[in-house]
């Protein structure tokens, strides 16, 4: 069966690498390097992350993009041929919402693919809910899901929501 290509994108620190790490059945191929400017963490993705998982017999290739805009030339390359997009945004960092909106508009205008917005950090006490983020983006509530990127279960549920949007059908598979 031909693997599905899904892209995970979003601003710096949204949890893209963590999300792929939670889902992947193989060691994630990371391209992390030490940061050259203050972005709130020590290392950041400079090219891509790659992970692989199988869901109900369907192989899924996960490609994570770098979050910094200086690497936006990589976004186009990675989204090429993707069947769907997961845009992650940290729910406790509303200052990144405009950047997330810019990334979403940039990618979907050049590559119209189904997408779902994942609001991470839902385990924190003070965080935007998926419904509030949906209102901010002007999206239907069913297109925005909350998740904890460190939790495989939570990440998988978000992935399933993405697949439902791609296939247009309710996911019947067993996880």
């Amino acid at each position, binding site marked *: 069966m031909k693997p599905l290509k899904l892209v995970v994108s979003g601003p710096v620190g949204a949890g893209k690498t963590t999300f792929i790490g939670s889902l992947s059945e193989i060691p994630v191929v990371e391209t992390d390097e030490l940061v050259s400017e203050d972005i709130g963490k020590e290392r950041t993705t400079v090219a891509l992350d790659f992970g692989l998982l199988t869901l109900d017999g369907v192989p899924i290739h996960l490609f994570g993009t770098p979050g910094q805009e200086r690497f936006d030339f990589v976004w186009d390359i990675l989204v090429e041929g993707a069947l769907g997009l997961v845009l992650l945004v940290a729910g406790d960092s*509303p200052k990144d919402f*405009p950047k997330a909106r810019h990334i979403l508009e940039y990618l979907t205008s050049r590559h119209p693919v189904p997408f779902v917005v994942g609001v991470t950090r839902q385990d924190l006490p*003070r*965080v*935007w809910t998926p419904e*509030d983020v949906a209102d*901010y983006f002007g999206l239907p509530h069913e297109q925005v899901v909350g998740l904890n990127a460190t939790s495989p279960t939570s990440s998988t549920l978000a992935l399933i929501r993405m697949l439902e949007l791609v296939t247009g059908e309710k996911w019947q598979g067993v996880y």
Partner: protein
Amino acid sequence: MAVFGNLRDMPLPDLVAMLGRRSGVLEVFGLPGKRSGYALALDGGKVLWVREGNRLLDPVEARFTLQELFRLQEGAFEFTPGVPPAEGMVLGWPLERLLLTLTTVEDEFQAYRPLLPDPKTRFQAAALEVWLEEPLWSFWERARPLLQGGPRRKSWPTGSGFPWTRCATTCTSCAWRARWPRCGLTRKPARTRRSKASSAGSSPP
């Protein structure tokens, strides 16, 4: 769970548009140059009341405050959903219409900004018994005691609920639309200070 952030990343117009028909209290605080914050009570997409610190604002003050908040580019906000407590007179302003009005006024203000007079310009009421249509009448009733004395920006009373820039804009706007006679206002240009040399009669080299 609450909606929170900074006006720097999410200006009030965007925030208000996002809140739509929600009910709750929107608090805006940490504003540069302001000691106290503001609270707006929203119910089903309508503004019920506006508070500055612990003080409930009257409609005119609330209107000006919202216009000021509309322009802010720095300050924290937090929206707490729920049924807001009833306080004083209910304003009942629809949020969407308010947004449209504030945007229009802001556009107008930006257009008149180059025409705003020198801060030393005085606007003084030349006639006190006038008849004006709303909303000018409400403005006139409120501003008359202040305009009788012909204050300048420097002596404009603080805490009047009437920011100087807003009053000057309204007065300038009236002038632009040739409503001076109806407003009963005269505009006295700023007096320039004569240099000590010229006042002493000495001629320039």
